[in-house]
């Protein structure tokens, strides 16, 4: 069973108290379904699901419900940026 690393930054990281999670998935599941499982295990992450996402190192431009997982390795939850 493939596993998805979930990277958490800033407020999302603070909400969970960890900067990284891992979740197994079945090929054919949507990204939204897998993230829902993550939130079930870490309820304080829920408000952070409205943030932008990056999948395997690129900004995700479509909704998570439109992404069918096959061999993806890494999703990042990106709160509003505050660099500089």
């Amino acid at each position, binding site marked *: 069973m493939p596993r998805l690393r979930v990277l958490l930054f*800033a407020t999302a990281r603070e909400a969970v*108290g960890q900067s990284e999670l891992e979740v197994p998935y079945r090929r054919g599941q949507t990204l939204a379904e897998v993230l829902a499982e993550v939130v079930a295990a870490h309820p304080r992450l829920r408000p952070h699901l409205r943030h932008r996402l990056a999948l395997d*190192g690129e900004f995700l431009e479509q909704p998570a419900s439109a992404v069918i997982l096959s061999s993806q390795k890494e999703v*990042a939850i990106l709160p509003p*940026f505050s*660099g500089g």
Partner: protein
Amino acid sequence: MIPSALIRLTKSPIRPETYRKTLEDPGSGGVALFEGRVRDDPGHHATRLYYEAYSPLALRELERLSRQAATRFGARRIVIVHRLGHLRTGEIAVFIGVATAHRTKAFAACRFLIDELKRRVPIWKTREESRTKR
């Protein structure tokens, strides 16, 4: 003209003079530079911030910004360095330098880079007290 761009995320203190050579160019008459520093908020104790980045994507996005600065403003030399980790008041969080033929475009390009960095690049600061280990 392909601009020479030096882009870096670093946990070490930023020393702008390190990047002087990179910004040298006989065709550039104007060099605009920007340093973003941690400042004391009025009414707070000395500020301690934690900076983190989604590094692979941040670097790629900074490279895109550099190419845009070259195309739009004729930037000939570009340096963008962002600090990560724990910073205190007075430390440099970001350093940007741009060399162009004339000053107006140097200012415009430098301004573009810091504005777009803040808007488009996955880097975050949080107050130190709320930090968790990464």
